[in-house]
């Protein structure tokens, strides 16, 4: 089973390294054909406007939409979360924390109250989540990681740390070991 990383631009190398460190077989996904070879996909951090435009040019946006609606597990970080907003009952605002000098790191609680160094870079905010969405982490009152069925998003970048817990969670999600509580 191969896990794809959307390789249009952004933190592709970092996600590939994290998934490989978890023991996964990883494939870069650039064109629709690549998508047929993977069982799940990670959408990295980057510039969501650029990624969206380039996906359209090859028809990858449509191919991906079909796969997501067909139940393929997908995880989006930062820009990835923005791109996945359309498939979830959430509302995301781009660059909502501000510009680069407002980027921040913070110790957050994740997976049963354990701490995690979350890195937010010109990050989006997850403003609203509806009932079907399982909230997995918060920073203060703000939702920063959540899941709806086969879709996982975080506004922070676990791929920029050596902490593999979020990637491991995603891999377990693919295997069906962590069923969504809300579904």
């Amino acid at each position, binding site marked *: 089973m191969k896990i794809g990383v959307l390789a249009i631009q*952004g933190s592709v190398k970092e996600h590939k390294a994290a998934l490989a460190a978890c023991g996964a077989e990883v494939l870069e996904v650039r064109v629709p054909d690549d998508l047929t070879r993977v069982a799940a996909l990670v959408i990295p951090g980057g*510039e969501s406007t650029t990624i969206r435009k380039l996906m359209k040019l090859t028809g990858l946006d449509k191919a991906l939409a079909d796969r997501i609606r067909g139940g393929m597990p997908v995880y989006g970080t930062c820009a990835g979360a923005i791109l996945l907003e359309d498939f979830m009952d959430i509302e995301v605002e781009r660059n909502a924390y501000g510009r680069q000098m407002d*980027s921040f790191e913070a110790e957050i609680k994740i997976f049963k109250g354990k701490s995690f160094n979350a890195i937010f870079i010109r990050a989006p905010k997850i403003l609203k989540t509806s009932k079907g969405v399982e909230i997995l982490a918060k920073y203060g009152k703000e939702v920063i990681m959540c899941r709806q069925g086969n879709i996982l998003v975080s506004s922070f970048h676990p791929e920029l740390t050596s902490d593999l817990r979020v990637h491991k969670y995603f891999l377990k999600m693919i295997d069906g070991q962590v069923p969504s509580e809300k579904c």
Partner: protein
Amino acid sequence: MAKKKNTPLLKKGLAQMLKGGVIMDVVDPEQAKIAEDAGAVAVMALERVPSDIRKDGGVARMSDPKMIKGIMKAVTIPVMAKVRIGHFVEAQILEALGVDYIDESEVLTPADEEAHVYKGDFKVPFVCGATSLGEALRRISEGAAMIRTKGEAGTGNVVEAVRHWKKITRELEALTKMKADGLKKAAKEMRVPLDLVKSVAKEGELPVVNFAAGGIATPADAAMMMQLGCDGVFVGSGIFKSSDPAKRGKAIVEAVMHYNDPAKIAAISEGLGEAMDSLEIKDLETKYADRGV
């Protein structure tokens, strides 16, 4: 829950998000919009593109803050802006404006012949040019969070960017094979801390993202720099001094994404119109790459 801001990880992190992308020089909000629509991952605000600086002569300085603010308003992608080498007050001004990245650039007229800006003191991250590993590591030890080749800006001639990048990679490779004595000597020669040299030798790569810059004018130039191992490209005069900036900008963006697919690059390169006016390196009055080593 305490927030930490402006850490080295965050400064370097933004550059990591720009990888695989194209950063375009723009001189006004209209150009910035065109760049964003073409798929740029960031724009570089400056008062004149390098080829015009070459033509017009005179002292090239940081841009008018009003223009930079206009560009920051016009687009949602990160905005970078240039300061003269060593001009720490221009850097303070750009930080006050809240730009996302500062390029301490040899394209502008240097303000200090002895020293670069001490970038570690700033909240805003910096990118700097380099022609060799020593230069790259000196900039990193001053606090640069991203490196680019200097190339030779404003020429539309990629040869210097290729030269600088190959030199950096060759020197990196040599470093990985050195023993303790050699590393000590290399650190001394490059005038950088031994710890930095040791960690770079161990990793076999620079500790920050490195882009290609200086002379990139075509999709093929951009893809070539990517195939040589750069993380992304800056395009200066190459886009807005060509006959069809929107089309060429988009083509270069696509070429960087599909850099390993010659058939795609061929299709992308069709009918782009005229590239920018170009220059031979030997005919230049001033080589920008010699500034601030």
